[in-house]
């Protein structure tokens, strides 16, 4: 499973020398484990495994002499932490770092708060050379005091960052080894160059999006109801929350009695999740980790439950499910549970002359100009929309069922047959309306156990819940229920090149064909969706859309 998963090799490097650095830095191979620290430069985004090398690099590049400032100001451990955060904050804000940093610059206690999550540099502080001049190293009583104090503070810090203890050990060991060997610190070759979109300043924690998702009651209520109504499943368990966002699902799990929750997200929103967790006094239960699930080191070998809100438009847009499946195969206990547990996908033909007039016909005459050139992409791109249920002109057809406990990544690229009986129409205008395209949506199911025979492939979530209202949780993103932020996905047939029949001609007949989900080349998170169709015994046609 993990072999087939393209992201399982986590050290993929855009510079192509991802293997080189380990060997270069630790020639004996002893330390060439994944546990080497990742120390991010104070002045840019280069990464190092060696704090001293990083500080040398900063001094040479920008003149920022960290050890010099430390010695000049006589900084203790807290002082150094503040100095680090001061510099990182300035760099983060794009401001210049002053040449002569003073005590006044470091007066604010808020500087004790790390700017960089899990700043490996802070963890290495007491391993730095004690003074700029090596002669004084063992002799100064001040240094001894400093060391003592450092040790106390270090213990404190370790409590806060226990998930980093293994990193710390690796740092200490590496540095001890080096200094015993009397090596001059040297520039570490650039470590695995961070992928550009991982750069920690770049992604922005848009409140709006999280507000929209949290306020999507269909979504958030479903997770809450399942977790709170099934506390017996969560009590005492270890839970992994993948793509945790603001941490809401993790906090639900903690409230439901989970012994430990690990919340992972690669975006900067993780910092907010951590604050939220702290604010709600759940930090003893919930551990927040920033990074891709494929890259982070979990503090446990196995989890009992994976909870995740991974669904995208048309269910699979954005390809986040593979990360969940990767984590399932790597971390989930043999009898562990995925929340949610099942999903199925639906398609139906639609006819909506109002939508067509608004968004397609519109371009025929824009202030007297012909802008039909703008219509092409309407047919090339799938669109996320909310259509009124009356637009659906045929029976919805289930075309793909996913049992999330067993589905494999390769199953997410598929082609599936579909067929739908076109509804009868009454009025003349309805009879003259064209079938405009197809609508796709998905249903989600939250089962209490890995095997849930009551969920059939073509169960609707609402129907399944209705059978046992008190206990079952699920939801639909379809057009017959409350709108969700996923809306539905509309595939408009290009009437310039395809023939579409009227509802009058199609009524009572079956329309159907094959729907294919293919990963879109050049759009890592995008999807190509191809739908073929024929009405009754009529001509078979097909069209491809890009969802991006």
């Amino acid at each position, binding site marked *: 499973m993990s072999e087939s998963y393209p992201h399982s090799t986590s050290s993929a490097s855009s510079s192509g020398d991802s293997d080189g650095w380990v060997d270069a830095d630790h020639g004996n191979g002893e330390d060439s484990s994944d546990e080497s620290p990742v120390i991010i430069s104070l002045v840019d985004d280069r990464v190092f495994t060696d704090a001293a090398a990083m500080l040398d690099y900063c001094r040479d590049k920008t003149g920022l002499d960290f050890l010099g400032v430390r010695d000049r100001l006589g900084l203790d451990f807290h002082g150094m932490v503040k100095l680090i955060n001061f510099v990182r904050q300035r760099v983060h804000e794009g401001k210049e770092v002053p040449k002569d940093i003073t005590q006044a610059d470091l007066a604010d206690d808020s500087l004790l708060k790390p700017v960089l999550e899990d700043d490996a540099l802070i963890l290495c502080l007491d391993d730095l050379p004690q003074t700029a001049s090596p002669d004084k190293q063992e002799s100064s009583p001040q240094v001894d005091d400093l060391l003592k104090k450092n040790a106390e503070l270090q213990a404190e810090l370790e409590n806060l960052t226990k998930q980093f203890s293994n990193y710390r050990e690796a740092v200490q060991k590496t540095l001890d080894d080096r200094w015993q060997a009397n090596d001059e610190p040297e520039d570490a070759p650039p470590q695995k160059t961070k992928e550009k979109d991982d750069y920690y300043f770049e992604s*922005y924690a848009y*409140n709006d999006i*999280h507000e929209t998702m949290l306020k999507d009651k269909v979504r958030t209520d479903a997770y809450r109801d399942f977790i709170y109504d099934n506390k017996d499943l969560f009590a005492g368990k270890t839970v992994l929350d993948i*793509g945790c966002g603001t941490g809401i699902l993790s906090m639900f799990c903690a409230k439901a009695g989970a012994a430990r929750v690990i919340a992972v997200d690669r*975006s900067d929103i993780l910092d907010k999740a951590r604050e939220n967790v702290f604010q709600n006094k759940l930090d003893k239960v919930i551990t927040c980790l920033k990074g891709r699930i494929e890259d982070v080191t979990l503090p446990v070998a196995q989890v009992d439950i994976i909870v995740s809100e991974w669904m995208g438009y048309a269910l699979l847009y954005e390809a986040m499910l593979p990360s969940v499946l990767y984590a399932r195969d790597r971390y989930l206990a043999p009898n562990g549970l995925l929340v949610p547990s099942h999903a199925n996908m639906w398609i139906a033909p639609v006819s909506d002359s109002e939508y067509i007039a608004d*968004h397609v016909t519109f371009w025929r005459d824009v202030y007297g*100009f012909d802008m039909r050139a703008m219509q092409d992409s309407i047919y090339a791109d799938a669109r996320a929309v909310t259509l009124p249920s009356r637009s659906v002109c045929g029976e919805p057809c289930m075309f793909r069922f996913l049992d999330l406990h067993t589905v494999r990544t390769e199953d997410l690229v598929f082609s599936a047959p579909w067929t739908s009986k076109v509804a009868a129409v009454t009025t003349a205008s309805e009879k003259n309306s064209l079938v405009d395209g197809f609508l796709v949506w998905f249903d989600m199911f939250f089962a209490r156990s890995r095997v849930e025979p009551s969920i059939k492939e073509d169960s609707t979530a609402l129907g399944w819940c209705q059978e046992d209202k008190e206990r079952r949780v699920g939801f639909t993103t379809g057009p017959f229920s409350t709108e969700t932020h996923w809306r539905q996905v509309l595939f408009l047939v290009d009437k310039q090149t395809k023939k579409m029949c009227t509802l009058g001609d199609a009524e009572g007949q079956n329309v159907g064909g094959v729907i294919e989900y293919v990963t879109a080349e050049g759009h890592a998170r995008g999807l190509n969706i191809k739908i073929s169709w024929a009405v009754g015994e009529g001509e078979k046609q097909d069209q491809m859309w890009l969802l991006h």
Partner: protein
Amino acid sequence: MPDAMDIEVAEQRLKAMEHSEQHYFNSYNHHGIHEEMLKDEVRTRSYMNAIVQNKHLFKDKVVLDVGCGTAILSMFAVRAGAKHVIGVDMSTIIFKAREIVKVNGMEDKITLIQGKMEEIELPFPKVDIIISEWMGYFLLYESMLDTVLYARDKFLEKDGLIFPDKATIFVAGIEDGDYKDEKIGFWNDVYGFDYSPLKETALSEPLVDVVEVKAVVTDPTAVLTLDLYTCKTSDLAFSCPFDLVARRDDFIHALVAWFDIEFSACHKPIRFSTGPHTKYTHWKQTVFYLKDVLTVEQGEKIECSLHNRPNEKNKRDLDIKIEYRLNTQDPRRAAEGTCLYKMC
């Protein structure tokens, strides 16, 4: 609205975004933007009238359309009798614009160039008129004004015209208790959890939304007026002290900002406003929530100042600071504060 940069910035951000954030933005559909702008009647009709009703100004002139998008303004200029129009846009929308121009039989009259104004060469050394729809939210957010000014300095004839040529930002105080509660108070209790860390972020992000005119408690005050013939890029960083006078006894939860646009070269000046007192535009208004709720009595004055500057790191983002002090005899209602905002 500027399109090229919007799309590119949006795409870059989209790439940097996490799953949880992405699917919300997927609907960011290139044509969606142009559709929205073209369907903004206040905007498009004002430009159309300014151009088409002033044939005497456009006849036989060379016109430059900065950030031409679908080329609608270029085509208006041809309709008004322009000798030739050059449309420039960075975005790939220019390829659609070419098709559109051709279909409308204007390919001889309109030259469309994809690229940055700073890097391209024009088929004419100088132009008589610059037309551009460069305005962003809060007038200046992700606006193309700097590009327009560059084009003015490099390409515009000495007595050339700019459409539009005047822009003014206004500010007023508003009563917005319910909505503030929905947008800011929401974070106090999210499914029983304290989400105050996100509240700070919410407060620092100006909200682009529609404000009803009845919410406006004070007289509006202009905080920035730009004359496009004379202004400089450096004018976009500005500080302005101003007073807001309460029209009635009420509470003030936020300041609202909007802008007016004027085409003063027209035979009869044409103006439009994006304020709460007039028709909807896609720019809506921009709301800056204050930390305090001000309790004001009719006639009382709030001394304010607004400081705006492009972010040092990303000049398309704006750093905005608002200071306020309620002048009142009643010490129980006295209030002052400073709020920092970031539009990004």
